C-alpha cells in the first residue's frame, strides 16, 4: 500500500548538513595550532597531559552514560573538546594524574549530572580546573620557562605584573608574549595562534564575534585606562589565559547567552571581572573565575535580553 510507504512527517522536509560533530571538529581544528605550539614550547609533556585529559574525559562520559542508561554520545566529540581545554589550563609541570582527575570531574559533575551536552550551567573544563586549583594550589602554580632544558621554575608575566613573583624576574618582551614563548599554562601562551583559531571559528560561524570582542575589548579598555599606555595594555591582553578564555571557553554554547545583546553583556561582564581579579583580587589571573561567574549569570542575562521581535514590542 502506498499509504504505508510514504512518510508524512512535519515540515521542513530538508535540513542543513550542520551537526554537533562538525561544530566540535571545528573547535578541535581551531585549537590545533596552539596545541602544536604547546608541544614546541613545553615539550612532549604537553602531549602527554592532553592525551591523558582527553582519554579521561571520553572514558568518564561513556561510563556515566552507561550507568545512567543514556545513549552513549562520545561520538559527538564534545568530551574531547573538554579534555583538550582542561589540559590547556594546566602548567606543564603538573603530574599526569591531575588532568585525569580534572577531566573526570569536569565530565561527571560538570556535565553529565545536569543531563549531558547543552544542559550544564557551568563550563565543564573550567569546573574541573577550579577543583584542581582548590585541591592542589601548589601543583597548579608551578610554572616553568618554555623551551627550558632543565625546566627552571619561574613565574608567569601576570604574576610579575602583580608583584607576587620573586623580585628580579624580568618581564618578557611583547613579541615573546604574542607568540607565546613565556611561562604559563600549556595551551594559553600563544596569543597569536589562539587568535587565528578564534578567527577560524568566527569565519566558520561556529562562534559569534560578540563574546570574544566584547570580552577582549573590555579588558583592553580597562587596562589602557589603568596602565596609561599601549604596552601596558598589551601585557594584560597577551599574558595569561585571556585569548584561550575569550575565544574558546567564554563562547561555550551551553553556558553563555544565546541572544545577541546578551553575548555582548556577558563579554563585558567577563572582562570587568577579569580585570577586577587581576588588579584587586588575590590571584594574578582571573579569566577562569570570571567566566565561571558569568556562566551563573547566563540564564538571567538571556531572560532580560530577549530580542525585540519583528514588528512588535519586547
Amino acid at each position: 500500500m502506498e499509504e504505508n510507504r510514504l512518510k508524512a512527517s512535519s515540515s521542513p522536509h530538508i535540513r542543513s548538513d550542520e551537526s554537533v560533530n562538525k561544530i566540535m571538529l571545528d573547535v578541535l581544528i581551531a585549537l590545533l595550532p596552539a596545541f602544536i605550539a604547546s608541544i614546541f614550547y613545553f615539550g612532549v609533556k604537553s602531549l602527554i597531559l592532553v592525551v591523558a585529559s582527553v582519554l579521561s574525559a571520553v572514558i568518564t562520559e561513556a561510563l556515566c552514560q552507561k550507568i545512567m542508561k543514556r545513549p552513549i554520545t562520545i561520538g559527538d566529540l564534545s568530551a574531547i573538546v573538554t579534555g583538550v581545554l582542561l589540559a590547556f589550563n594546566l602548567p606543564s609541570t603538573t603530574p599526569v594524574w591531575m588532568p585525569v582527575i580534572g577531566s573526570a570531574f569536569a565530565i561527571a559533575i560538570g556535565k553529565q549530572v545536569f543531563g549531558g551536552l547543552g544542559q550544564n550551567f557551568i563550563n565543564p573544563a573550567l569546573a574541573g580546573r577550579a577543583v584542581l586549583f582548590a585541591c592542589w594550589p601548589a601543583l597548579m602554580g608551578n610554572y616553568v620557562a618554555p623551551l627550558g632544558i632543565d625546566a627552571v621554575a619561574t613565574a608567569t608575566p601576570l604574576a610579575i605584573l602583580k608583584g607576587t613573583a620573586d623580585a628580579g624576574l624580568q618581564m618578557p618582551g611583547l613579541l615573546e608574549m604574542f607568540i607565546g614563548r613565556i611561562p604559563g599554562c600549556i595551551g594559553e601562551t600563544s596569543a597569536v595562534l589562539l587568535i587565528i583559531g578564534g578567527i577560524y571559528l568566527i569565519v566558520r560561524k561556529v562562534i559569534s564575534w560578540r563574546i570574544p570582542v566584547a570580552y577582549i575589548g573590555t579588558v583592553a579598555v580597562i587596562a589602557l585606562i589603568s596602565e596609561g599606555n599601549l604596552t601596558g595594555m598589551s601585557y594584560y591582553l597577551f599574558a595569561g589565559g585571556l585569548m584561550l578564555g575569550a575565544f574558546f571557553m567564554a563562547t561555550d554554547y551551553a553556558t553563555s547567552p544565546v541572544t545577541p545583546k546578551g553575548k555582548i553583556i556577558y563579554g563585558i561582564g567577563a572582562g570587568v571581572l577579569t580585570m577586577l581579579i587581576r588588579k584587586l583580587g588575590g590571584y594574578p589571573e582571573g579569566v577562569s573565575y570570571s567566566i565561571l561567574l558569568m556562566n551563573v549569570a547566563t540564564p538571567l542575562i538571556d531572560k532580560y535580553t530577549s530580542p525585540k521581535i519583528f514588528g512588535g514590542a519586547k
Partner: protein
Amino acid sequence: MDTKGFTFKGGIHPPHFKKLTEQKAIEKAIEPKVVVVPLQQHIGAPCEALVKVGELVKAGQKIGESKSFVSANIHSSISGVVKNIGMYNTSGGSKVNCIVIESDGKFTVHESVKPMGNIDELKKEDIINIIKESGFTGMGGAGFPTHVKLSPPKDKKIDFVIINGAECEPYLTADHRIMLEKSDDVVVGAKAIMKVLDVDKCYIAIEKNKPDAIETMKKAVESIDNIEVAQLEPKYPQGDEKRLINAVTGRVVPSGGLPMDVGAVVQNVGTTATLGNTIKTGMPVIQRVVTVTGNAIKEPKNLLVRIGTSFKEVIEQCGGYSEEPGKVINGGPMMGIAQFTTDIPVIKGTSGILVLTKKESEVEEPKNCIRCGKCVEACPIHLQPLILSKLSLLNKFDETEEYHVLDCIECGSCSYVCPSKRKLVESIRVAKREVAAKRRKASK
C-alpha cells in the same frame, strides 16, 4: 532601485534545487478523464455545490458558491457529468466535500466565459467583481480569497502593491516560469490590482537568482512608469508577505497586524498572471502551473494542470518515479505538507508536487539542544525558537506566550539550521495551537 538587492534580517540560505525545472517551459498537462474538485480550496467558508449528481457541466461553469464574504467560488475544470459529491482526501490532510466530474472528452467551455474587456476601460467595481466571481485565491500556498485582500477597510490607505515573485522555497519554479512566459498577463493583472486599490505604485519583487525573470519583467514594464522591478537577495523566507514588505520598502508590519496596516498589499505573481488571463479570456480559475519535481521524479516538469487532477496522474505524466519515493509533498520542502497518498487532487494552492527519495526522507533522531543559538540568528521574527520549543515540550504553553509564540510564521528556518536536528518548529506549532485554543475559549 535595480542595482541594490533588498532583504530583511534573519533567514537562511537553503540550497535552491531549482536546476531540475527552471529551464523547463510550462507544458499543458494531458486533459484528465476525471477530476475531483474540492468545495473548499481556500481559507474561509466552504462552498455549497450548485450542481447535482448526473448533471452535465462545462469547463468554467460555477459549481460551488458560498454566501460568506471570506470564501471563493469553485468552477468546473472540464466538461462532463457530475458522478458524485462526497468526502475525499485532500492535500490539507483531511477529507473535504468534493464534486467528482467525469470528462466527456470535449472540454466544452461554458457560455458565461467571454473576454472581460480592456483593462483601461474596466472600472474598479468591474474588476473586483471579476475577481470575486472567478474564484481567485492566493496561489502562493496560503490560499486566501483574493477579493477579501483587495477590499481593505476605508480607513486603510494603500500606498503600493507588491507582486510577489520571490519564490524563495527551494525546488519550486512555477512562478519563475510564469514570469518568463506570461509576463504580459502579469502586467495586466498588476494593473488590475492597482486599479482596484487605487494605488499608483507597484513593485514586482524577484529574487536575484532569477536574472532572466528580472530581465523579462523589466522589459515588460519598461514603458509603464508606476510599475517597477525590485531585486531581492535570495534568502528564505523572502517570499513571506511581511518580510517582502520590509525588504522592498523598509516598512515593518506590526506584530499581529496585516500588510494593509502599513499601506501595502502583496499578491502572488501566479495569482496576478491568472488574473491577467481571466480579464483577457474570461476563464475563471480552473487550472494552475504546478512544479513537479524532486530526485524521485523521472522527468521533472512545470505543468499547467486542471484543478481536480489527481497527484498520481500528474506524477505519471512526468514519467512516474525514478526510484521508490519516500515523501510526496504538496508545496515546497520548507513549508509544504507531506502526503500519505497521491490519490488527492491538485487545488488552486498547489504550487508544487515535490517527491523526495527514501534517503532524503529519512528523519534524524533529535539530539540534546546545545544552545548554539543558530535558531535565534535564523529566525526572521527574532524569536528564540530553542526556548519556545523547550517550554512547549514541558507543556508550559502560557510561558510561550510571553516569548511571543503567536508571532511565529512557521517558516521552519529554525528546524532547518539546528545542528542537533531538533523538531523546533514542530513543537512551536503545538504551542501556537494550544495558546490560540485558550484564547478562543477565553473570548467565548
